[in-house]
């Protein structure tokens, strides 16, 4: 039986950690997560790996395989040349918990601060009507499985200390899903600009490259949001026009033409 040489990061907070080699017998169709499980069951029962569904649906098993953020349940051993060592490291943008597990709780804090979905007041028994074309954009964003690989690869979160926090691509995607929802009435433009720090994003698209759900994060979520922020804060003609018409920040279905502010 052929073997794969796995080089797995082992370490705890405080220690610098090290890469440990494990030889793993390879079966057809095996993915990196299978190999890690084999290591757990046979060589290192205390190897910490976060995973749930093993079907690329829950987004728990993100790690950096040969330096590239991937879902380990979707990364097949057959993608690597035989004899080539396969390095598995934790998502580096976040603090280490142990081995391949990192502390992603910050992401949940960011999420909690996004103004939630706010429907217009109506009768609850009434059926909402909208067309499929109204929600295709939103549905793309709602495919997100929160693996946080985009947060991990985003150089703003990974390499920079910014003067104000930056929410990161995952939550720009979430905000876009709310902002473009045909029934949402909340306004998140100032949140995006100020608390969310959308200006820190310099659209270098690494988030889009690593997204296992193939969400076009930059083109479909972040740039349209940047343009909405520009509408509000950086477009002198639009600002003047709004002042003239005496309108502030209406949004959602109530606004004429379904316009964002």
């Amino acid at each position: 039986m052929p073997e794969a040489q796995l080089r797995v990061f082992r370490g705890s907070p405080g220690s610098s950690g090290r890469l440990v080699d494990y030889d793993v017998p390879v079966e057809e169709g095996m993915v990196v997560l299978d190999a890690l499980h084999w290591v757990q069951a046979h060589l290192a029962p205390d190897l910490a790996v976060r995973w749930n569904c093993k079907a690329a649906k829950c987004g728990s098993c993100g790690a950096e395989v040969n330096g590239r953020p991937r879902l380990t349940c979707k990364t097949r051993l057959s993608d690597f040349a035989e004899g080539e060592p396969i390095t598995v490291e934790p998502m580096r943008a976040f603090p280490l918990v142990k081995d391949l597990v990192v502390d992603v709780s910050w992401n949940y804090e960011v999420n909690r601060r996004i103004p939630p979905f706010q429907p217009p007041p109506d009768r609850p028994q009434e059926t909402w009507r909208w067309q499929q074309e109204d929600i295709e954009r939103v549905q793309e964003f709602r495919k997100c499985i929160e693996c946080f690989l985009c947060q991990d690869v985003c150089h703003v979160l990974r390499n920079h200390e910014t003067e104000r926090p930056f929410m990161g691509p995952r939550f720009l995607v979430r905000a876009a899903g709310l902002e473009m929802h045909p029934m949402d009435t909340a306004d998140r433009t100032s949140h995006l600009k100020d608390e969310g720090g959308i200006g820190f994003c310099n659209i270098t698209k690494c988030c889009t490259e690593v997204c296992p759900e193939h969400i076009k994060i930059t083109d479909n979520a972040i740039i349209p949001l940047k343009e909405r922020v520009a509408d509000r804060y950086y477009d002198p003609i639009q600002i003047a026009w709004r002042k003239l018409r005496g309108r502030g920040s209406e949004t959602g279905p109530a606004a004429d033409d379904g316009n964002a502010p």
Partner: protein
Amino acid sequence: MKETIERHPHDVLVVGAGGAGLRAAIEAADQGASVGLVCKSLLGKAHTVMAEGGVAAALAHVAPADSWQVHFRDTMVGGKLLNNPRMAELHAQEAPDRVRELERWGAVFDRTADGRILQRPFGGHSHPRLAHVGDRTGLEMIRTLQDRAVGAGIAVYMECTISHLLTQPDRVTGAFGYWRATGRPVVFPAKTIVLATGGVGRAYQVSSNSWEYSGDGHALACLAGAELLDMEFVQFHPTGMVWPPGVKGLLVTEAVRGEGGILRNKDGERFMWKYLPEDRRHEYAATDEEATTWVEAQSAARSTDARRPPELSTRDNVSRAIYTEVREGRGTEHGGVFLDISYLPAEHVRRKLPSMYEQFKELADVDITTGPMEVGPTTHYIMGGIRVDADTGATTRQGLFAAGEVAGGMHGANRLGGNSLSDLLVFGQRTGAGAAAAAAAAPELRHIDPIQVREAERDLSAPFDRPGRADPHRLHEELQSTMQSQVGIFRTEADLEEAIRRIGDLRSRWPDIGISGGRPYNPGWDLVFEVRNMLIVSEAIARSALQRRESRGAHSRLDYTEPDPAWARLNSVVRLADDGLEVTTASVPELPDELRPLIETE
């Protein structure tokens, strides 16, 4: 050194953050209770994300003839009338409201041409009934509920395992567990506890379930003195992946068949025609042509007089059919059968089944728009569970509630696809309300017995004192192989007795388990308590299966191949007695008179 254990008191503690747990927590918080929500994984990763096809609710958007009465009838018929009729009734009546409510909370379901929620057909449902979002409905649901729960200010304790329930003689008083990241113990004193821990699939080798599905809630409830119901009814989903080995058991959504997927054996025969039960044959298409007409109408979202294809028979039936084909030598090279959707336009397949397309392309190098998938049965769901009160989710133990897959009664002997997501919503909401009301009626938090906490702590640390002894992975593997081979789709008395003996043997080895490494994030250590739970649940399944000497729904006995009228109105009941698990029966609750006409024709 004596350090005080971290404590988080709440009115209502919800264990499990899948659809049912989240919905219960939201409801309890809405009723004004202080709510804590504990989950083994990160928030939003629960097994609900794996649900694909949709949530069943008689909205009647696609088929105006649909109603809660028809949904009720389908559910009862699918469950072979072993369902708790009150649960089936509440479920059918309230599911549409729960779905509309989700939409009010931000869920974005696919639409009909006139802009309402689109519904797709599924096995055993008389009408297209499943509200869906492509084939990632579960993700949509859990994200919507998660956002709602976070917005409601519910305290969420992530990656925290509950290993023990704390009790007083008259009621449950709290829960004890540990933080997985640090291994440190934590106590949650609570007036009421809602168990919403999902299922037991990891007791089997081939399963569509994630590692979390180790029957924790079933076992905790049983240990705390509550009763389990109908544990012999384990649903084997007909279509799991069979190749490559690494993904064996991974779910292939029933939506593939709902969209027109055809099952064939290796000879190309559309074998489902042979396996339609005679008394139901009139509900299915008579010819390939009629089935094709039906599929075309579905694809175009128009109504039709054509009847549904035979592949949309109930899950228990399709599973047995596939299993039989393979056993009789008509299976594929890898021990499955072919499921083919490639005769439909590629664009349509990619739009309606995006994650299936992705899953096969990425994991099996199969393009489902050009070729067939290979599929076979996989352990998917347990119909049985903790015995609960239909209206409130209260178990037979004071202060303890249960909702979702961990609760029993709703689905009878076989669950219809799509009824689980609606189950989570309907009974999540009801149980949340029930637990909040019971908590409000309880004057104050009860005293936590320090002896129980000390014992629980000792249980936690004991495996570290025995390194080099029994390995939890080996015990788990042996259990899985026993359950797969002897308590699987087809069962016999000899197999079941052998399984019970082997499970007993594993139980006697469990106290010997030793663990190496430290407490922080140690998966071997996590497995110790999961194996304990799986052993309890597996024994409950095997003993219940042994007791039911008939074949009904998902429970198929090779030595008793027919339904036995003597068992038609009996549920199995398991409870913990002094000398182990005790199995008895209880009468199925009587059908109220006003519901009787709905299923009288059966």
